[in-house]
């Protein structure tokens, strides 16, 4: 059983007891514990269930590489699944539950899968569940989904906040171990700006656990001094609890800072995403120990030797009282020695190497530990925890030599440098056969915007494993990074360090070497996804030879640890099965993030009120107070209608239309684009932009214009007012303002840069109000100021003046067919002007109206609407707008395109009005059917509805649509099937339903 020892523990504070709960049980730990160390300290060996077979799972590692110890944490709005116990700091009141079992962790029905495991090899689901067809969806898949998945889904809105932080720096050093600290100092002393990130809550990494001397002091003390020194340097920023999650192009690096995970509920963001632009990145990310592949290596109590050592030294927790150590390298001995020195019983060190190790072996022997060389673990027995171990010869098939009862196994298969960040952006690896690992290939580093390398590996992340070499390598890395970032190097004093000499590792990919299939079927590679040695061998046998095929076929390395423990063992197994060299097989692609990061952090501040910008006109608040039902248009919101209490939105729309036609209505038109175009070539420029002629427009006058893109399609429309010889004001649609301004700038800057024209987007400078209806003039006359009579202020002209004391620019234009003035005032006075109109308009029955009333009124007049009649595939000719296409101009944007075969096809659908025979409203988007079907068996069509409304003015449904040769077929009746089987019969009519001669707008 695992226990908390009465003394020791460099990271815990025994004075501060912390109580927490696991699966409802109250447990105790100390300040400084991780959830994992606290669980082990309470002898909670069993912490979860595996993904596929629901095998009992215990803590196997001590850091980010942990594949098993994933828990549901917290409750309600702070609940989170799949929290890794080994990287979760213990805090008071922490409550965690284990995952992926039913009904309980101890007794899990899903464990039946384990019994059937022989029938569920890699990829079994590709080979079965094929018949009967419907069973996959209704029987097999639901079952598989239920038993898959790990943590519970959160069920409420997140109570926490998140944020981003941008910064630019010279050097980012990733990893706060001895290598990272030294690299940071080496870079900083040159004057470079340095940011040092460490994912845990402590500096120093492994070195203080493994020991050794640096410059004559114990490495732990040396590190403390180093941290003090760095924290006093003004050009250095130190950050704990901050993991570099990914390296991206052009020196971009993401840091994931867990600001409040260890103190939930405290004010401030839970996570902060650091978006860093670095000239150079030093990856001092250390190395990860590999498990050994032997039968039963997944039984709770079997742990990485380094993890056993970490828990012992850092938290005074012993993984077991009677431990067996299995290794193929000297480092494993350190764990045995540490255990022995802590008074734990080490039953055996099984060293796969025939001749064993060096100095460390000697010391272990001196401490009286029994060491068997050339020996291996044949099999570990035990269900929910280790009970006994079968010992066999390493060079053999696994014949048991003896059985030893024990309660924990520490395994060491050698170390693999953490090369993720190096690889994210294209850094290549090289296989070191001597040390049996992939390490960064310095000659093929990721390159940045300048084509130069920008990532420098340091220390064990660079494949340098000995303390003295690590120190040297780290200093060199820091200096190289500073130099590449443009800083001058001074001579640096060499650092003296004394590691214990080690004898070489002997690669062990299967233990014992020639294990029979029954053992290989119990030797785990991927603990979480239940991938075993036999599965990889099966994939190879079936031709899934690419390492990517094997990964995807077996799911090796696809679990939440992304194969930190399993990938190297897995591909070595694959290489062996293919009879290929390991480097020839290669690795799968390393993708960010290094360990999973919260979606909340990725989203940052953008949620709720600041999810997206919301653009407001000067009258926005008034609309809100007066019952506006909103319609999003781009980032604006426009009132769709102003519903009164007890009134439906539809009724409101009807009322607004009627009132505008009979009395006077107000529309907030501020969102319409207003772009000032000025210069000697302004007319020439607009002639190229619009399909119609603008240069001929007289100052003081307005003209409706169409804009097409170079592909010929109609993209915007609006009224252009000529201010003076050199100046035009171009109105655009609401959605068009920014787009059209950008469109103008694009052509001015990139094609016609010799033209003398400036454009300025004045959309937000003015609040614009449409005063519409037969009583509009009376209202304005009451306000007083400029002369708004028909004589002095005719239709399609504009004037500057004052109204009710406001400086205004008024346009006599109409989109409703009524007498109408569009009046612009400075935005800062928009609300006041609007309120003045509302007050003055009372006696005329004034009412504001929204976009739907606007749409209905324009449809009654047969005016097209960009976005309704157009959809990006429509040319002006389709809409009967040929009158607005200048024949005189030899060029305008879209002209050439409109000469193409399909654009001049007489069979294009053309705009018409549509009236149902019974007055009903045609369904939006309905298609008119034609005889027969096309070669693909689809019903032929001959038209479609583009706009359809109930007209309160005409008391019937009216619609506009595009119909094959429509204008030539006036009076013809065509059929529009609904989606519910009903068929609407509609007559083709003139699209102008109301006031055909335009008398009303022209009064």
């Amino acid at each position, binding site marked *: 059983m695992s226990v908390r020892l009465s003394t020791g523990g460099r990271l815990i504070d025994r004075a501060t007891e912390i109580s927490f709960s696991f699966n409802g049980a109250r447990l105790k730990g100390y300040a400084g514990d991780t959830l994992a160390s606290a669980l082990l300290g309470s002898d909670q060996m069993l912490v979860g269930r595996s993904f596929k077979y629901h095998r009992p799972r215990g803590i196997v590692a001590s850091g980010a590489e942990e594949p098993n110890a994933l828990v549901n944490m917290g409750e309600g709005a702070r609940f989170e699944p799949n929290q890794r116990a080994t990287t979760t700091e213990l805090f008071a009141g922490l409550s965690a539950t284990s995952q992926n079992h039913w009904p309980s962790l101890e007794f899990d029905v899903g464990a039946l899968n384990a019994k059937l495991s022989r029938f569920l090899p890699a990829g079994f689901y590709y080979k079965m569940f094929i018949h009967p067809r419907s069973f996959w969806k209704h029987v097999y898949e639901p079952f598989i989904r239920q038993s898959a998945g790990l943590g519970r889904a959160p069920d409420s809105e997140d109570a926490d906040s998140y944020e981003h932080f*941008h*910064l630019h720096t010279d050097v980012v050093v990733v990893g706060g171990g001895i290598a990272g600290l030294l690299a940071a100092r080496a870079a900083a002393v040159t004057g470079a700006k340095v940011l040092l990130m460490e994912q845990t809550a402590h500096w120093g990494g492994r070195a203080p656990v493994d020991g050794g001397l640096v410059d004559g002091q114990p490495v732990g003390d040396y590190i403390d001094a180093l941290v003090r020194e760095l924290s006093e340097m003004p050009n250095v920023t130190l950050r704990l609890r901050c993991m570099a999650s990914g390296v991206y192009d052009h020196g971009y690096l993401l840091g994931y800072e867990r600001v409040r995970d260890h103190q939930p509920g*405290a004010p401030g963001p839970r996570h902060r995403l650091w978006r860093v632009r670095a000239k150079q990145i030093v990856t001092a990310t250390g190395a990860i120990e590999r498990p050994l592949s032997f039968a039963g290596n997944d039984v709770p109590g079997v742990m990485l030797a380094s993890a056993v050592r970490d828990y012992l030294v850092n938290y005074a927790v012993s993984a077991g009282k009677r431990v067996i150590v299995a290794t193929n390298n000297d480092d494993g001995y350190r764990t045995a020695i540490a255990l022995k020195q802590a008074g734990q019983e080490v039953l055996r060190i099984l060293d796969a190497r025939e001749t064993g190790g060096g100095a460390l072996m000697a010391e272990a022997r001196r401490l009286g530990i029994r060491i068997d060389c050339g020996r291996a673990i044949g099999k570990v027995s035990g269900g929910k925890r280790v009970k006994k171990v079968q010992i066999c010869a390493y060079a053999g098939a696994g014949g048991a030599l003896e059985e030893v009862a024990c309660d924990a196994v520490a395994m060491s298969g050698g170390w693999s440098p953490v090369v993720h960040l190096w690889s994210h952006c294209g850094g290549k690896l090289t296989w070191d056969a001597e040390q049996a690992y992939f390490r960064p290939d310095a000659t093929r580093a990721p390159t940045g915007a300048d084509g130069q390398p920008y990532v420098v590996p340091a220390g064990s992340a660079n494949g340098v494993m000995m303390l003295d070499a690590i120190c040297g390598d780290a200093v060199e890395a820091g200096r190289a990074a500073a130099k590449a970032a443009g800083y001058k190097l001074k001579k640096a004093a060499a650092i003296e360090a004394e590691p214990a000499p080690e004898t070489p590792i002997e690669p062990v990919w299967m233990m014992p070497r020639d294990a029979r299939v029954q053992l290989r079927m119990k030797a785990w590679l991927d603990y979480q996804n239940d991938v075993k040695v036999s599965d990889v061998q099966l994939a190879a046998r079936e031709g899934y030879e690419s390492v990517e095929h094997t990964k995807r076929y077996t799911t090796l390395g696809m679990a939440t640890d992304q194969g930190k423990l399993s990938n190297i063992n897995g591909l070595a197994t694959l290489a062996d099965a293919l009879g290929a060299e390991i480097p020839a097989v290669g690795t799968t692609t390393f993708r960010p993030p290094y360990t999973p990061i919260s979606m909340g952090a990725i989203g940052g501040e953008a949620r709720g009120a600041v999810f997206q910008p919301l653009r407001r006109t000067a009258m926005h608040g008034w609309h809100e107070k007066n019952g506006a039902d909103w319609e999003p248009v781009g980032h604006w919101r426009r009132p769709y209608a102003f519903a009164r209490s007890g009134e439906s939105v539809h009724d409101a729309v009807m009322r607004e239309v009627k009132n505008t036609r009979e009395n006077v209505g107000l529309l907030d038109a501020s969102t319409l684009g207003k772009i000032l175009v000025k210069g000697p070539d302004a007319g020439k420029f607009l002639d190229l932009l619009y399909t119609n002629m603008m240069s001929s427009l007289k100052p003081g006058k307005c003209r409706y214009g169409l804009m097409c893109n170079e592909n010929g399609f109609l993209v915007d429309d609006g009224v252009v007012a000529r201010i003076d010889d050199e100046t035009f004001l171009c109105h655009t649609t609401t959605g068009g303002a920014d787009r059209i301004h950008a469109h103008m700038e694009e052509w001015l800057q990139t094609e016609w840069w010799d033209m003398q024209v400036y454009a300025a987007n004045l959309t937000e400078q003015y609040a614009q109000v449409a005063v519409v209806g037969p009583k509009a003039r009376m209202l304005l006359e009451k306000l007083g100021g400029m002369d708004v009579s028909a004589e002095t202020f005719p239709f399609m002209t504009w004037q500057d003046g004052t109204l009710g004391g406001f400086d205004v620019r008024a346009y006599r234009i109409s989109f409703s067919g009524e007498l109408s003035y569009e009046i612009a005032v400075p935005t800062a006075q928009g609300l006041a002007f609007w309120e003045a109109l509302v007050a003055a308009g009372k006696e005329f029955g004034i009412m504001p109206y929204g976009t739907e009333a606007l749409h209905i009124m324009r449809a009654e007049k047969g005016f097209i609407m960009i976005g309704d009649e157009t959809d990006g595939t429509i040319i002006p000719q389709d809409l009967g707008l040929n009158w607005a296409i200048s024949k005189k101009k030899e060029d305008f944007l879209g002209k050439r395109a409109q000469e193409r075969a399909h654009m001049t096809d007489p069979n294009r659908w053309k705009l018409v009005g549509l009236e149902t025979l019974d007055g009903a409203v045609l369904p939006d988007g309905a298609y008119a059917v034609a005889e027969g079907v096309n070669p693909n068996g689809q019903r032929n069509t001959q038209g479609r509805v583009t706009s359809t409304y109930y007209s309160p003015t005409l008391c019937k449904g009216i619609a506009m649509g595009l119909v094959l040769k429509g204008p030539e077929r006036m009076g013809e009746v065509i059929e529009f099937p609904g989606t519910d089987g009903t068929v609407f019969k509609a007559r083709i009519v003139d699209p102008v339903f109301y006031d055909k001669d335009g008398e009303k707008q022209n009064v």
Partner: protein
Amino acid sequence: MSEPTSALNRAEFKGIAKVEETGLHGMITLRGDQSSAAIKKAVLSVAGTVMPEQREAIFSDTGGVVWMSPDELMLLCPYSEVEARVAALNEALAGTHALAVNVSDARTVFRVSGPAARDVLSKLTPADLSPEVFGPGQVRRSRLAQVSAAFWMEDDETFGLFCFRSVAQYAFDLLKVAAAEGSEVGYF
């Protein structure tokens, strides 16, 4: 004629930094060839300052001139004087190809101040705000979360910035979130 109002009526927020909407300002967009004598002369006579260099922001007690692009300046002045200054510019630039236009009502100006000001803005913009790169006298046009903005420094702990008026509330809400209590970064 009624009293013009700024988008947020000088709203304020105090967190790890102080955020203020600073009311109405006279703002004039001036497009033109900045190397031409006529433009330089006009700027000097109307704004009282020399032509700013690339990314330079020059302030006087009555206003200032902010470099916006190689052919665009933003002239700042008291709100009440803006029309007169536009007229003066047009007069001074008669016969020169240029565009001077009042955009006072199309923008909203904020001030973000305090020791944490750089940290707060760095949560929202990708621009490099390190003291050695950006300080008083300079302007940077960039992104404030999802909208465009231009910012400069009044002193080493005070930013001025403007964005479009329609997104004033969004910008203010953003700055409040970025300056929320407990969100200290402590980088700058």
